[in-house]
Every structure is written in structure tokens, then in C-alpha cells.
């Protein structure tokens, strides 16, 4: 049973609040991704779970045990950092074994555990090397290995892939996900990369300015963003979020006060006599699809993602329509909340 429960967790530095009360129940074996722009408090939240930052208010339970006042080492967690934080003067083996040695496990048991983890991570040939003799991806694996051998209740990842190049990042994110499924360890993963978040998460927490804007599955967040922030943050390219006045052709409710209308670029289709007219500014052919930068008569920019190699020329005017009714998201302009 390795659940994690956050109850109205708050953090303030002096009088400045940085986390405004986050509540969440994480089930055993779930992979939760905390995502948000830099400075939104996502790392602080993770560090509070780890015990590296004090909790100003609220409760954190790990494996149904209140851990507010426990030291990091008593919380039964393992953490992987962005810069790996390997012990530079120790071999890969010792790096992975050190946490076990501190727990006074018998030597042959330590060796067995480290070797098992090394096999899992394909680190067997590197056990005697020093961290500086390894590539970035290998170091990342050693950091993972160090976390795995301790068999903690919870893995905490703080942007573990941000120091890797793009190709390796994609590869490692698949590896981490597979590994986590196999081990079935509850995981909390912080990233600023929404693609990483969408592809890895069982559930996502989107954070903005210390507030958990929305918690849900990736598809849930994509299809039903609760706030303008989530709508704009999840999905690539980002959703078009414009004043209702920019879409005079759409029939929108008029009794709800000022509205923000959101339509994803991929949910716009070319339709003769469609309600939205836009002039093409720039065409980006990506092969699988085509991104069209267009301008509405009001001067607002509109992104459109057309499937395949769409034949669109610069300067022409496109007639567009939302794909279906669910493609149009309406938000209260003042509160930013979904209507």
C-alpha cells in the first residue's frame, strides 16, 4: 500500500504564499505528473513530499502515514534529480549500493539487488566506472538505479530528463514509463514539458502560480480543460484562445457575460461557407500535417492544423468551421473558468 495523500498542502516563504493549497489522492502504482511553467511551484510541491522543504500548512501522508514532521530518510521515498546528483568519487556500483549499505543490509544481498537493477537498466558493463566516465543518458540510468534498489514506496522525479538531448529524452521517457509499470511503484514526476507530461502520466496536475488548476487524465485535460490556463498549456500547438468578438460567425451564448472562446488548431476544418474566415499568413508543412498561421478580420492570429500536406497558399482566405460542437470551449473571460 503506497498511496500518497495531499490535504490542502500550503507553502509560504515569510508572508509570500507559493503553494495555495493542493489536495490530491494518489493510488498505489499510479504515475502522476505535475506540470506547469517555471516558477509555478511544482518543484516546491515535490520537495515538500520528499521532506526537503517544510510544509507551512496541510498534511502529507505517504503509505497512509502522516509524514509532515519526518526526515526525508524516514519517508520511504527515492528521488531522482535533474542533474542526477551522483556521488562523483564513487563507482556506479557504490553509488547504487550506498543507500543499502546505510541500512546495514548484508553484502551479498546488496550485490544481488544492485546487479538486478543494473541488468534492468543495462548498466551491467559500467558498474566499476565513475560517473564522469558515463554519458548523460547513462548517468540518468544510474540515478534511476539508485532509486530502484532501495525499493521505496514512492519515486519522486524532479525534471529528470531536462538535461538530455531531445532524442534521448524521448527514449528515456519510454524507458522510465515501462520500468515504472513493471515495478508498480507509485511515482510523482515533475516536468515543464507538456508533451512529456501527456505521454507519461496516468493523471496530470497542471499547476499555475501555486494553484493546482486541474487534476485529471491527459485526455480529460485535453478534451475538457477547466480553465483558460489549462486550455492554453495542454496541447501542441496551443489552443486558439480569443475574445468572443473574434468569431462573429459562431453562435455563442450571449447571456453569460464576456467570453473567451477556445478552439484547438486541429479542431478547425476547411468548410465552404464556414463561419470563420481567415487570411493565410504563413504555412509550415510538417509532412504529417500542416500548420497554418492565419489572421482573422479582427487582426487576431489564428493557428490551424490541417491533416497531411494541405495545399494552402499564402494570402488566400480560408473558410473554416469547428469540427464539431465539443471543439468549441467557452470560458468566462473574467474568472478564466470553463462555462
Amino acid at each position, binding site marked *: 500500500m503506497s498511496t500518497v495523500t495531499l490535504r490542502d498542502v500550503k507553502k509560504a516563504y515569510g508572508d509570500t504564499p507559493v503553494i495555495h493549497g493542493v489536495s490530491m489522492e494518489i493510488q498505489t502504482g499510479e504515475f502522476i505528473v505535475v506540470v506547469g511553467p517555471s516558477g509555478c511551484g511544482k518543484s516546491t510541491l515535490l520537495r515538500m513530499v*520528499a*521532506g*526537503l522543504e517544510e510544509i507551512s500548512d496541510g498534511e502529507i501522508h505517504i503509505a497512509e502515514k502522516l509524514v509532515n514532521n519526518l*526526515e*526525508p*530518510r524516514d519517508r520511504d*521515498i*527515492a*528521488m531522482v*534529480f*535533474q*542533474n542526477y*546528483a551522483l*556521488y*562523483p*568519487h564513487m563507482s556506479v556500483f557504490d553509488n547504487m549500493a*550506498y*543507500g543499502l549499505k*546505510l*541500512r546495514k543490509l548484508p553484502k551479498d544481498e546488496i550485490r544481488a539487488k544492485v546487479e538486478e537493477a543494473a541488468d534492468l537498466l543495462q548498466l551491467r558493463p559500467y558498474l566499476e566506472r565513475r560517473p564522469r566516465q558515463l554519458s548523460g543518458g547513462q548517468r540518468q540510468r544510474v540515478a534511476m538505479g*539508485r532509486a530502484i534498489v*532501495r525499493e521505496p514506496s514512492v519515486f519522486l522525479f524532479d525534471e529528470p530528463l531536462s538535461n538530455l538531448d531531445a532524442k534521448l529524452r524521448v527514449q528515456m521517457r519510454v524507458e522510465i514509463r515501462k520500468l515504472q509499470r513493471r515495478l508498480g511503484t507509485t511515482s510523482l514526476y515533475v516536468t515543464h514539458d507538456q508533451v512529456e507530461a501527456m505521454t507519461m502520466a496516468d493523471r496530470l496536475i497542471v499547476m499555475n502560480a501555486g494553484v493546482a488548476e486541474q487534476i485529471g487524465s491527459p485526455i480529460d485535460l485535453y478534451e475538457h480543460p477547466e480553465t483558460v490556463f489549462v486550455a492554453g498549456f495542454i496541447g501542441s500547438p496551443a489552443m486558439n484562445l480569443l475574445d468572443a468578438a473574434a468569431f462573429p460567425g459562431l453562435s455563442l451564448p450571449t447571456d453569460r457575460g464576456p467570453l473567451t472562446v477556445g478552439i484547438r488548431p486541429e479542431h478547425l476544418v476547411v468548410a465552404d461557407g464556414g463561419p470563420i474566415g481567415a487570411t493565410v499568413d504563413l504555412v509550415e508543412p510538417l509532412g504529417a500535417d500542416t500548420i497554418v498561421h492565419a489572421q482573422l478580420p479582427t487582426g487576431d492570429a489564428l493557428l490551424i492544423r490541417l491533416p497531411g500536406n494541405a495545399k494552402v497558399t499564402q494570402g488566400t482566405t480560408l473558410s473554416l468551421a469547428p469540427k464539431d460542437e465539443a471543439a468549441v470551449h467557452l470560458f468566462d473571460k473574467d474568472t478564466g473558468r470553463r462555462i
Partner: protein
Amino acid sequence: MPQTKSWIVPTLYIFFLMLPIYWLVNMSFKTTNEILGGFSLYPKEFTLENYITIFTDPTWYTGYLNSLAYVGINTVLSVAVALPAAYAFSRYRFIGDKHLFFWLLTNRMAPPAVFALPFLQLYSAVGLFDTHIAVALAHTLFNIPLAVWILEGFMSGVPKELDETAYVDGHPFWSFFIKIFIPTIAAGIGVAAFFCFMFSWVELLLAKTLTSVDAKPIAATMTRTASTSGYELGLLAAAGTLTIIPGAFVIYFVRNYIAKGFALGRV
């Protein structure tokens, strides 16, 4: 072509740099008579007599032992005290930390001579006069700030996540500090120890003021240029040559780390 002549300037530089050292070594193998008798580029009457005297006469070799003793105590003491201090400056934020860090260096802004008198009286009062520990303590006044400054630079180059990983891994603080952190900044400790050693090794005034017989440093012994047998310039040159050796030895071991320290902008 300028390229083909490019060796001239460095060669001249090294020549002028090495000249006084060569002359010192040259003199150390001469008899005093030859030194006073005229100008010679190399020893005409080669003699090891000067060195033999130094290694056999207790007034000479105890000078070296005394110097090594207080320099050793000073280096160990300075680094041991500076390590936790530098850790605090590098890892924690506390009221006035930046000011304190800067003002640490003010001790180095005054020439050591100004402290000679207060130290002499203080140490005499507590009965530390003419002991190795007196000189070692006096030198820590200058060396601890320097060591803190150097070590803080190296420590700040170690990501804080290393500490945090260790706590999550289950290290108690001191176990982490001694087994993980100190080996990680070993280069910095080497550099700090080197600078403490060098300052203490070449500092003459305080060392001379605070000692009379039992802890008299070699540099003080060397100020005794004349004796009953007249000027002993050969002996003095030999003693001088020997004082260079420990420094050269230490520099040899930390030369790469010093380069690293310069790269960090802290040396």
C-alpha cells in the same frame, strides 16, 4: 616571420625568473670565501659543507622542524575550521551572510605587522609565548578567512541536490559531510591547504615576534647573518635553498587543482 621568433620572450622571462633561484643554489654550493672573493657563474670549489652543517647543527635544523610544526598545525586547524564555515556560507541563507562573508577578508587587509604587538601581549599573558601553537593560532587569523573564501567557491560548485540525495538516501548529516561531501571537494581542500601552507611558511614577522628559542622558525634563524666566524653566506644560501623545497613540493601536488580554482574565480 614572427612565429619562428616566438620562443624568445618566454625564454627571456623564464631566464630572469630562474636567475635568482639559480644564484641562490649556486651560492649554496660555494664556500663563503669564494662568494666574497669574486664573481663566478658556477661553484669553482664545489662544497656540500653548508648542507652538512644545516643537517647536523641543531640550531639550524630545529628551525626547519619548528617551522614545519607550526605550519602543519596551522594548515590543519585553518582547513578544519573553514570547512563547516564555508559549508554554511555556501548552503544556508542567514541574516548578514553576505556582509559577514566579505568582512571575513578584512583581516587580510591589514599587514600582519600591526597584530604583532597585541598578539605578543596576549600570548605572553596566557603563557603561549614561544610555542608552536602560538604561531599557528596567529596565522589562522589570516588563513581561516582565505580558506573559507576558497572552499566556499568549490562547495558552491557542487549542486545542492547532492546533499539532498544523500538525505533522501538516509545519510545523517555528518556521515554525508565526511564520506560524500569532503571527497567531492577534495581539490578545493588541497588548494585551501596549499594557500594556508604558503602564507604560514613565508610569514616571518609574527613568527619571529612570538617565538624566542623553543619554537624559533627557520626564517628567523636565517636573519642571523653574522656569527663569531664572520659572515656565513654559503650557509645562508643553503638554508634558503632548503626553504624553497617544501613549497615546490606542495605546489607540484596541487598544481592542477589551483588551475581549477582559478577557473572558478576563487583563488
